[in-house]
């Protein structure tokens, strides 16, 4: 800056320089702040940006199938064709109602083309626009292929609409409805946490969740791992694009112990009557079949059951939704007698000592009739089982007392839930004095009650499933297993019994022999052989069992629930059965032929023979 400069100009070059410093400082402040915001704060701002413009939508993974023990599909998934509307394509300027109007009008046009009544009302559109604008709106759910092809032909007229394939639950074999259960549309599972947390989805489609049965019991096992679809939305909430986030994983298949063939035979045998049956593998408690009649079609619950259909099922006096195999109480009748016999043997009663049956057991003013009107005469334990002699067992019960009977009954698993992996099981009742006082208005325990209990009547209440466990325990020599439906993995090892009944081997042998007599020549001979055209078709395996006819109700309501428990083959049992038919003739006549057919489907029938089946014509208890 020369001297001349200073003299000529009032404006100092130093002022210009200091202004330059101010500018430089200003630009430096901007550069520094921009670095802070754009580079240092970039991650935080990107997250804020995502929070406001990216929506996470849960995509359900396919639900696992339910298979029988040989891999046949009891519950599977079928494709379901839907039409979805991308509302952003119909976005109108101005208020929301303009867009709603546009969608409404488009749905009317679409309905005319696919020739199906609209499934979404204007109110539903409004709700969707208000709450789930970013996700496509499902306007038709589960349409048939004809309607789908009509839509595909006019696809170009409906650029805002697109078809999509979802999965719907299906029960192709139509059996084991009470076991498999069904599904309902429900919220998928996700952790609800603080708003803005990355694990909380903004939107989710409802998916199939277990409603009852195994579908519900193993819901968290079957359900697939949800994936995520990320949707870019604008400031008004309209969708601007989407991309895949986490991939959805299908749920694992659930393999059951149930044999679909046997299940179908069982259901066929029960069809037309009211009752239930359970088939167990006595070696480990695996449920081979379990059915209740009348039943229902689980497909009716898919995608969701109509109110009328549900009212029809729920209001039916025969209660088709009730699983009688484990959620209904029955008196076991004479099928309880083997337990009474075991209790007596444990109390060191001599099984060979004979009791003189006169056809009537008298206790003061109270008496009980035997099935044989004139009495069986002198009878031992084994023969009393074979003939199902009421008076013998009344006397036995009277001798050993209710405590001994109850103890044996509880050992066999009565009076408590078996612990099967299915919801809704009932525990039943093994009555004693205390129970009676508590539940029968303080009425005290009479000797007659002991007598009734010892022949499986009175206040004793069991489920068919419990009786199947009892049959299995007799079959395997005293091991009570927890029945189970989910097949074990190879790594699980053999299941340990819940309890090993501590009665002597000899006692079991004797009662088992008695039960074999029942089938061979006693009240249960129709388990062993089937008459057809004057010939007899015998079962291709040795079998043991016990019939039962429990009388319930009084007066006009008086009816008989007819029972069979059985196991086969006798030497090395692989099948244990319990079956009850409500309102039957007798165990030996009504239920035994059904059990015969059931076992015949497993073991087959031998060559037919002519003449009398057995000497025992009276198939009574």
């Amino acid at each position, binding site marked *: 800056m020369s001297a001349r400069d200073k003299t000529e100009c009032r404006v100092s070059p130093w002022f210009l320089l200091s202004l330059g410093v101010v500018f430089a400082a200003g630009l430096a402040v*901007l550069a520094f702040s921009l670095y802070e915001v754009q580079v240092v704060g970039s991650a935080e701002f990107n997250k804020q940006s995502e929070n406001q413009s990216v929506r996470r939508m849960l995509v359900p993974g396919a639900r696992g199938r339910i298979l029988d023990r040989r891999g046949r599909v009891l519950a599977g998934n079928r494709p379901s064709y839907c039409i979805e509307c991308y509302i952003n394509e119909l976005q109108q300027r101005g208020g929301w109602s303009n867009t709603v109007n546009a969608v409404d009008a488009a749905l009317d046009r679409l309905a005319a083309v696919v020739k199906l009544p609209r499934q979404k009302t204007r109110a539903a559109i409004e709700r969707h626009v208000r709450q789930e604008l970013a996700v496509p709106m499902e306007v038709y759910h589960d349409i048939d292929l004809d309607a789908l092809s009509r839509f595909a032909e006019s696809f170009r007229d409906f650029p805002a609409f697109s078809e999509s394939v979802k999965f719907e639950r299906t029960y192709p074999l139509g059996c084991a409805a009470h076991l498999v259960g069904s599904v309902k549309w429900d919220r998928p599972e996700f952790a609800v946490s603080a708003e803005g947390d990355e694990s909380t989805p903004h939107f989710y489609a409802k998916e199939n969740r277990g409603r009852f049965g195994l579908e519900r019991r193993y819901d968290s096992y079957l359900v697939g791992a949800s994936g995520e679809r990320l949707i870019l939305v604008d400031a008004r909430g309209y969708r601007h694009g989407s991309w895949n986030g986490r991939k959805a994983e299908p749920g694992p298949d659930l393999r059951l112990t149930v044999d679909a063939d046997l299940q179908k035979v069982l259901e066929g045998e029960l069809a037309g009557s009211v009752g239930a049956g359970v088939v167990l593998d006595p070696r480990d408690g695996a449920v081979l079949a379990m059915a209740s009649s009348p039943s229902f079609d689980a497909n009716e619950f898919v995608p969701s059951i109509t109110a009328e259909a549900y009212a029809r099922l729920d209001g039916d006096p025969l209660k088709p939704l009730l699983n009688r195999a484990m959620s209904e109480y029955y008196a076991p009748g004479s099928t309880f007698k083997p337990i009474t016999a075991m209790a007596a043997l444990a109390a060191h009663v001599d099984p060979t000592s004979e009791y003189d049956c006169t056809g009537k057991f008298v206790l003061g003013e109270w008496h009980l009739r035997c099935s044989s009107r004139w009495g069986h005469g002198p009878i031992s334990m084994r023969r009393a089982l074979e003939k199902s002699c009421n008076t013998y067992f009344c006397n036995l019960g009277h001798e050993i007392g209710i405590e001994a009977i109850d103890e044996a009954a509880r050992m066999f698993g009565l009076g408590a839930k078996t612990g099967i992996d299915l919801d809704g099981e009932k525990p039943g009742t093994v009555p004693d004095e205390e129970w009676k006082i508590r539940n029968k208005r303080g009425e005290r325990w009479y000797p007659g009650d002991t007598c009734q209990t010892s022949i499986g009547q009175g206040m004793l209440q069991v489920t068919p499933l419990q009786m199947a466990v009892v049959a299995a325990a007799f079959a395997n020599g005293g091991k009570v297993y927890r029945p189970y439906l989910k097949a074990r993995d190879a790594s699980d090892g053999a299941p340990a019994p819940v309890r090993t009944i501590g009665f002597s081997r000899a006692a079991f042998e004797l009662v088992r022999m008695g039960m074999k007599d029942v089938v061979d020549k006693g009240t249960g001979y129709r388990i062993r052989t089937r008459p057809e055209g004057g010939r007899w078709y015998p079962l291709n395996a040795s079998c043991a069992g016990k019939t039962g006819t429990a009388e319930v109700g009084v007066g006009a309501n008086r009816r008989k629930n007819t029972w069979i428990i059985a196991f086969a083959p006798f030497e090395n049992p692989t099948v244990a059965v319990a079956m009850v038919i409500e309102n039957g003739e007798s165990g030996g006549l009504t239920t035994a032929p059904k059990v015969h057919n059931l076992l015949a489907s497993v073991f087959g029938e031998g060559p037919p023979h002519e003449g009398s089946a057995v000497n025992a014509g009276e198939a009574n208890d």
Partner: protein
Amino acid sequence: MEVLFAKIRRMNAVLFLAMAALVVIGAMAIYSAGSARSAEILHHAYAAHLKTAALGLAIYFAFALTDYRRMLDIFAVPAYVLSTLLLFVVLVVGSEVYGGKRWLWFFQPSEISKLALILLFAAVYGLHGRLDGHFGKRAETPSGWKGLAMGLALIGIPAALVFAEPDLGTTLVIVPTGIAMLFAARVCWKGLVALLVACALVAAFVLGSVSAASRAEDPEARERLLARTHLKRHQIKRLQVFLDPDSDIHGAGYTLRQARIAVGSGGMYGRGWMKGEHYRLGYLPPTISMNDFIFAVLAEEAGFAGSALVLALYGGILFSGLWIGLKCRDDSGRILAVGITTLVFCHVYENMAMSIGLMPITGLPLPFISSGKTFMVVLVSALGVLQSVSVHGNADEADFRKEK
């Protein structure tokens, strides 16, 4: 012809190239912002931007090739008087856009008054002892307290009119520009310092009142505190947001928050041209994405690298402007250099700083980048005046008549 080439050779290349680069960057940013809009006309806003720049460039060269002293003699006073009159007119008949009366027919008089004030001050404080004055006698540079009072009055008239529109942003540009020029002209140094201190006190008082008001529990006390600032409701809101950016993120603070998110999510290298999300998805309000908040669009797409480039280009304009002033051998040229560079700096600083919350939000465009016709023409013309100073400023080196 030779004279013409000699003059063009004396023009400052950095000043020109930096401006041209910023105009192109602006056109690209406007193209991006316009493509997200549904109105067809906005898809061509970038072309309008370039056309306006071309029109400005014509004036630019006309100004650059004219001796600024002659220009000041002829234009300075009429331009100031006319622009001030237009500011009156716009207050009476202007059309209202976004709550402010700023538009007259197709232009904003407030933009013109910025340049007019610079020219007037250069004439009044720079042409001492050399020419016949405009006021009927030989010009004597106003100085001392009287000179300060005169300068403040000349700033105050347009500033008050613009403030009344209301256009706080432009006021905040006019006042510092005028005061910087008074400083440069050495008009009552003590008075100016006192004035700056007073301004700082007023700013502190206003911000303090707003801050106290937002803490006040009693609504009546709050109203009293706010009333004494004499600011409009929306201006108070902006100050509140400036003081506490998270206070009202769905209301008054929404724009600032979105601008910060847009700028911040750009990262180091940005999302890429045409790939910015915030203006495209409408989070950054579309009405401002092309104008006052174009920097948020640019910064999101170009990242810190782009922001730094833009800052460097503005640095090029500012420092070459000051360099022109340094080389100039008379006061009017230097005062012009001070005025024009300060004008650009104020715009750049306030605009960028408000986009990231360093300054309260005021409606100010970003020079050469924001879409705005009057502003573009005025600023390009202003740089033309600066080029004229570069060409004609040093009489010894540039006596074109002698060569002739």
